[in-house]
């Protein structure tokens, strides 16, 4: 079984982002870019399934310009066998991405798609579910455990009330939550090897997808700042403030 892992390049999780003063968006110039953490978890899961003999090949796919190749290579260094980049502008909407991914899944005849539950830039949490809808496949989102037995899958999901286990059969789309696994760091030899792994580029036009945006970003602004508070000296003073100043207890 071939596993397809869609990944996204994002501003690194530990960078403080800066909103552009003209309100047009977030500054991505000269900031550290990384694989979206949830995509790393998806990739790790796929690689483990290959190591366990359950999967035959792990194919990484990403949509964007040549700028994202560095991040694609870091995914190859983790252990994906090869990669596909669909050449397009960098910030397509999840619906367009899902349509493009559908094309790739069908071309590759993948039996399982594992992707991150959300990317930490747009925080949309849409692509995996949209892809499963377009493929008419079952979906298991926010996975914290994936168990495969032939074409049967049992996936434990992190839900608001706790955990839920669903049974479904492959092919399916699984999206990852934080506790599914801890992604490995690529070793130096694997980083070297990754440079030689195949990275095929497909033109957006060849996917037949109309990626026209449906949403116009009217404005991006910084959130309201919280004004700085005060330091209290003791528990007694804290309780007094909460009772008599803030009046919240």
């Amino acid at each position, binding site marked *: 079984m071939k596993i397809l892992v869609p990944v996204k390049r994002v501003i690194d999780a530990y960078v403080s982002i800066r909103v552009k003063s003209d309100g047009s968006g977030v500054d991505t110039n000269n900031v550290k870019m990384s694989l979206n953490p949830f995509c790393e978890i998806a990739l790790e899961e796929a690689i483990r399934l290959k190591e366990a003999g359950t999967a035959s090949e792990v194919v990484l796919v990403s949509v964007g310009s040549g700028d994202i190749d560095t991040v694609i290579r870091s995914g190859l260094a983790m252990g994906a066998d090869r990669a596909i980049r669909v050449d397009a502008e960098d910030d397509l909407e999840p619906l367009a991405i899902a349509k493009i991914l559908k094309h790739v899944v069908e071309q590759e005849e993948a039996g399982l798609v594992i992707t991150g539950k959300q990317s930490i830039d747009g925080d949309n949490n849409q692509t995996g579910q*949209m892809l499963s809808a377009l493929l008419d496949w079952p979906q298991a*989102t*926010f996975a914290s455990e994936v168990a495969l037995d032939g074409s049967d899958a049992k996936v434990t999901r992190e839900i608001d009330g706790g955990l839920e286990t*669903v049974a479904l059969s492959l092919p399916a789309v699984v999206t990852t939550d934080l506790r599914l696994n801890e992604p490995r760091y690529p070793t130096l030899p694997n980083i070297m090897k990754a440079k030689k792994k195949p990275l095929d580029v497909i033109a957006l036009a060849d996917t037949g997808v109309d990626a026209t945006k449906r949403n116009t970003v009217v404005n991006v602004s910084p959130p309201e700042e919280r004004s700085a508070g005060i330091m209290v000296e003791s528990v007694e003073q804290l309780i007094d403030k909460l009772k008599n100043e803030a009046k919240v207890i």
Partner: protein
Amino acid sequence: MSILVIAEHDNSELHVSTLNTVTAATQMGDDVHVLVAGSGAGDVAAQAAKVSGVGKVVHADADHYKDAVTTELSDLIVGLAGDYSHIVAGATTTGKDLMPRVAALLDSAQISDIIAVDSADTFKRPIYAGNAIATVQNADAKKVITVRPTGFDAAATDGSAEVATVEASAENGSTKVVGRELTVSERPDLGAASIVVSGGRGVGSAENFKIIEGLADKLGAAVGASRAAVDAGYVPNDYQVGQTGKVVAPNLYVAVGISGAIQHLAGMKDSKVIVAINKDEEAPIFQVADYGLVADLFEAVPEMVSQL
């Protein structure tokens, strides 16, 4: 055209987040309907009919709606979509799982996690863990939207809408819920509590978390946690507050032994009053705290409990 709100429930109680979602929906248009899809969920339909601002409750009942499985509900919703300009659900794990599937089937680009309705087609939503707010205008004929519950007040419950029964969609059957481990607690719901006490890695162990729970119980509060505390197994996953956990906005949020990473702040910085207790005076949590106390939590928290 009307607005359809997808009710969240457990077949007996309407979830509070639906009340916030209805408030958001009433800002998108005048005629708000609520879909209650469940199994033996007549009581929920009756509760939904009492929500102020709701014009009609659409009730579909079938065994295969019992667990709110997305592949079952999405078929039903897509079948009903013809009558609606907006389809709206809470940005809970149920809504987040369901709505993108609905959106893709309707060929709509979803707008996730909105915190404000500027007009019927323009919405505000946080991006980058709440470090930026995007105003987004959507061009789709049918808008598919999830609503961040803390962004909107809960609707009142003094309405009296009619309940109309609709036929259930055929069973899809591709996905079955085979187990649930739900956290049972006497404490208020984390998402809706007016006071939340959260513990982080500084608490040190599951055993020590009793200190946090003790303070929460004294205050009648819900208990939350940072990702580090959840990852370390001190508390279950559903306690996590943050970018990828729950978003809370209580009157009082007490962060104990939490450093204040941006991903954590994303889930609590809209709280009315924030208290931070941390032994490191440099901890970033103090930059958002209204009241900061530099102290060892193992001394400060028990002292607080005894003084309250």
